[in-house]
């Protein structure tokens, strides 16, 4: 069956180290991390990735009061994605736009806030807000986009743990190919820094990162790494079928040429390198390319002692004979943006198609020998001859793996 080719024509994002792709990329090439200390309820100061985008740019103060942080991040990113695509939004048939937003979790923040609120009223549930349910339904971030932008096509969130950013994009590719929609706004968002439960859960698991120098708290592949830095953020892409994008003369940022999602079927939290390798290999086959064609592998590695090693094993196996495939990591700059991670990390690498530079993984003071992949780009960016294909890994709890492959558009 011949599939429509699907291309990226727009991108909007907010990251702990940038609110535009230009600012974000500049910081990734200059080694500027976005992790800082934040007061977390019941837990005190913790490293976290915090975004400082102008939420009032696209929302009224009332919308901000009633809605969620995830919704706000999604709305900001979606507007920026539409603007960047050069779409004449007012002229579009809004019933033909689909919104597919990946999230790791949703509702924890709002539920914790309400429990805290009623704790001030002796746990009297008469003080529980009527906004609770619309704030916590799982489709909230995507639904807030549709309300804010007047989009009447389908919308939903994709719950895929920390593979969700890729999963949102994959869903959009599928819906465009099925011609369910003509334009898709897709990616991932995270508001997880507002929930102490995520921090406390990682802490109890022995997987919450810290460092005396907070900017080094997230340090995948470093021998002293000790866990995850939780971040908020979002990246939303405008996706279209190639023929539609070309018909309107759109600037094409990249083509999505392959993907795969699979399941470990082995553990709630522990990764499985065999399945990760299977996932990457299947995505490469789906794209109709060979491992040697991949120029950058953007790793999922979250700075946990075990997880980083497992992913390196999988990459070493799949890319064993690929001297020109480079490997990097974006979480070393921004922490783990959870449901946004896949989409945001891909965004940080897309400009490589234009500048042929591989952004590094930073904060590697002493490389863990078990993570010493031959072409790991450490601490300094690497200029290469050409970047034409990027493979973006995102994995999540319950054993969900995703690999998304994009190619520079050259006709």
């Amino acid at each position, binding site marked *: 069956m011949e599939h429509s080719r699907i291309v990226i024509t727009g991108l909007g994002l907010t990251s702990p180290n940038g609110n535009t792709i230009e600012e974000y990329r500049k910081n990734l090439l200059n080694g500027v991390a976005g992790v800082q200390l934040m007061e977390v309820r019941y837990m005190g100061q913790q490293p976290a990735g915090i975004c400082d985008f102008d939420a009032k740019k696209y929302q009224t*103060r*009332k919308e901000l*009061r009633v809605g969620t942080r995830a919704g706000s991040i999604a709305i900001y990113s979606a507007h920026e994605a539409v603007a960047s695509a050069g779409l004449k939004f007012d002229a579009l048939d809004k019933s033909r736009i689909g919104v597919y937003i990946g999230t790791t979790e949703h509702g924890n923040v709002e539920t914790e806030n309400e429990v805290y609120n009623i704790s001030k*009223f002796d746990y009297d549930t*008469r003080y529980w*807000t*009527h*906004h609770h349910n619309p704030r916590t339904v799982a489709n909230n971030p995507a639904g807030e986009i549709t309300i804010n932008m007047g989009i009447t096509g389908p919308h939903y969130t994709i719950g895929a743990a920390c593979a969700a950013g890729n999963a949102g994009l994959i869903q959009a590719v599928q819906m465009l190919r099925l011609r369910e929609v003509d334009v898709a706004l897709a990616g991932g968002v995270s508001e997880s820094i507002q929930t102490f439960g995520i921090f406390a859960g990682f802490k109890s698991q022995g997987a919450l990162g810290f460092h005396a120098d907070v900017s080094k708290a997230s340090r995948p592949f470093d021998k002293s790494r000790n866990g995850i830095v939780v971040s908020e953020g979002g990246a939303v892409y405008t996706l279209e079928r190639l023929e539609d994008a070309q018909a309107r003369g759109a600037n094409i940022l990249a083509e999505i040429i392959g993907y795969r999602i699979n399941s470990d079927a082995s553990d709630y939290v522990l990764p499985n390198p065999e399945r990760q390798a299977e996932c990457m290999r299947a995505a490469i086959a789906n794209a109709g390319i060979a491992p040697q064609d991949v120029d950058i592998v953007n790793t999922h590695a979250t700075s946990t002692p075990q997880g980083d090693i497992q992913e390196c094993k999988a990459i070493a196996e799949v890319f064993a004979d690929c001297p020109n495939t480079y490997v990097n990591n974006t979480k070393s700059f921004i922490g783990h943006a959870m449901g946004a991670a896949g989409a945001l990390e891909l965004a940080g690498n897309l400009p490589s198609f234009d500048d042929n530079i591989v952004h590094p993984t930073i904060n590697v003071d002493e490389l863990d020998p078990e993570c010493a992949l031959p072409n790991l780009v450490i601490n300094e960016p690497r200029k290469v001859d050409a970047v034409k294909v990027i493979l973006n890994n995102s994995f999540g709890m319950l054993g969900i793996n995703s690999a998304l492959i994009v190619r520079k558009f050259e006709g």
Partner: protein
Amino acid sequence: MTEDQVKQIVIDIINEIAPDEDTSGLKGEIALREQLDLDSMDFLDIVMELRKQHGIEVPEADYPQLASLDSCASYLTPKFNEK
């Protein structure tokens, strides 16, 4: 507590829950929804803030009493003074 003070309490709550609205020239006798962009969830917010901030309970059957500033003042002032 006077009716004017109660009206000011209601205006203060509206300023919190609908911060984009201009409440400076509100007319007491005209329905709030005709003068401001308020929906049913906003009225529930007014009820919640009366409960939280002032310990005033408004039963659901009495929600229509909150339609205008004047009706709010007539309905709520005795409740404030009974506290």
